[in-house]
């Protein structure tokens, strides 16, 4: 499982956002080393199964940036079908694979494009809408990318980032950046919605015969609500609680069984 620390992939549609992606790629190099950022999957060779290749490439990836431009959603192929509706569409394959692998996926919206709604997305990338997005405006490009870099920084392992000190050469930039930004678009760290661990809760309730399983289910019910109301840290805590109680329930049952067997064996001898 040895992977390069802190690898960022930029996913984009060539006909939609090649300039956006290039600008982002260049600007992000202020914050991350060039070796950390990948813009194209160069690893796919002729004859490769590209589904396998994308899967392998994403194995080394910590963050997938999804560049969304004006025609990202609606772009059609020669037959008039929406590109996103093609299951073999590269953009879709990369995003759905990353989502399935629970990699940090950050939608980056250019040119005031709204975040696509879930019903506009194909099934296997629908959860993209739940990911915290970042908007990039050409007028405040430097600022916006800095915010994005800060958000990525919170996700990557430590020691892989170098955030340069505030540049003082552009005066209006340093004046507005701290105050205005925190109000208009302060960005919480992108974080994957935690699994509520419901399977374990059900298993421990029905198989372990302990009320602890019920506690686990109650915790699981809270995860989604907390998450959708923006209390992300609490949601993560509650998800962990759900898992912990399920584990306690399972361990409790095993311990109970062992003690029970010892008592049975003991009493058997006693009677004899």
């Amino acid at each position, binding site marked *: 499982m040895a992977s390069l620390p802190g690898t960022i992939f930029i996913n984009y549609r060539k006909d939609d956002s090649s300039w956006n992606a290039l600008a982002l790629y260049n600007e992000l190099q202020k914050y991350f080393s060039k070796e950390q950022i990948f813009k194209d999957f160069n690893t796919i060779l002729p004859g490769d199964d590209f589904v396998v290749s994308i899967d392998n490439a994403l194995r080394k990836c910590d963050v997938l940036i999804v560049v969304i431009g004006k025609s990202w959603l609606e772009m059609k192929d020669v037959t008039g079908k929406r590109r996103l509706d093609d299951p073999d569409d590269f953009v879709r394959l990369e995003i759905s694979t990353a989502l399935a692998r629970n990699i940090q996926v950050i939608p980056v919206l250019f040119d005031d494009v709204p975040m696509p709604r879930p019903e506009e997305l194909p099934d296997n990338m629908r959860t993209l809408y739940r990911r915290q997005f970042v908007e990039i405006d050409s007028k405040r490009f430097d600022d916006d990318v800095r915010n994005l870099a800060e958000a990525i920084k919170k996700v990557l392992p430590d020691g892989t980032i170098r955030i340069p000190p505030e540049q003082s050469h552009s005066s209006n930039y340093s004046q507005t950046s701290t105050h205005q930004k925190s109000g208009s678009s302060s960005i919480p760290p992108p974080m994957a919605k935690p699994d509520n661990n419901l399977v374990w809760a*059900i298993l421990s309730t029905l198989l372990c015969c302990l009320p602890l399983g019920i506690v686990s289910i109650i915790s699981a*019910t809270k*995860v989604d609500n907390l998450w959708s109301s923006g209390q992300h840290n609490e949601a993560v805590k509650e998800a962990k609680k759900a898992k912990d109680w399920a584990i306690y329930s399972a361990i409790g049952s095993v311990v*109970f069984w062992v003690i029970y067997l010892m008592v049975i064996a003991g009493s058997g001898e006693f009677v004899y």
Partner: protein
Amino acid sequence: MLKKTTAILFFTAALVAAVVIYHHPPGNNPFYPPCFFKKWTGFDCAGCGSTRACYQLMHGNIAQAADHNIMLLLFIPVIVIGIVNVFTARMQVAWQHLNKPMIVLWLILLFWLLRNIPVFPFIWMHSDK
């Protein structure tokens, strides 16, 4: 990596439990511990009868399994899809439809209550027989 360890632990435990239960019919068998909710209160808990249901299921008696713990039987597809989703990240869409903890909670609590009512339609849910 942690997930792999969990998967190995989980499936090993499940396999061992399955082999043991397959060869040792539960029911009045002192080898299995009683549910202590049942022992102390005399009432079924939501999980009572699940060991017997597993045994019957592994021997192909679906009706018998349903008789011991219908809730477990109903939840088997949910559990299977949930486990596939946890370990492989497949079946995400199917799991999203099933992942409704509030409904699960109410179903189980309701089942717990109803199966202890000793009158005709409910008595059938009781684990004993």
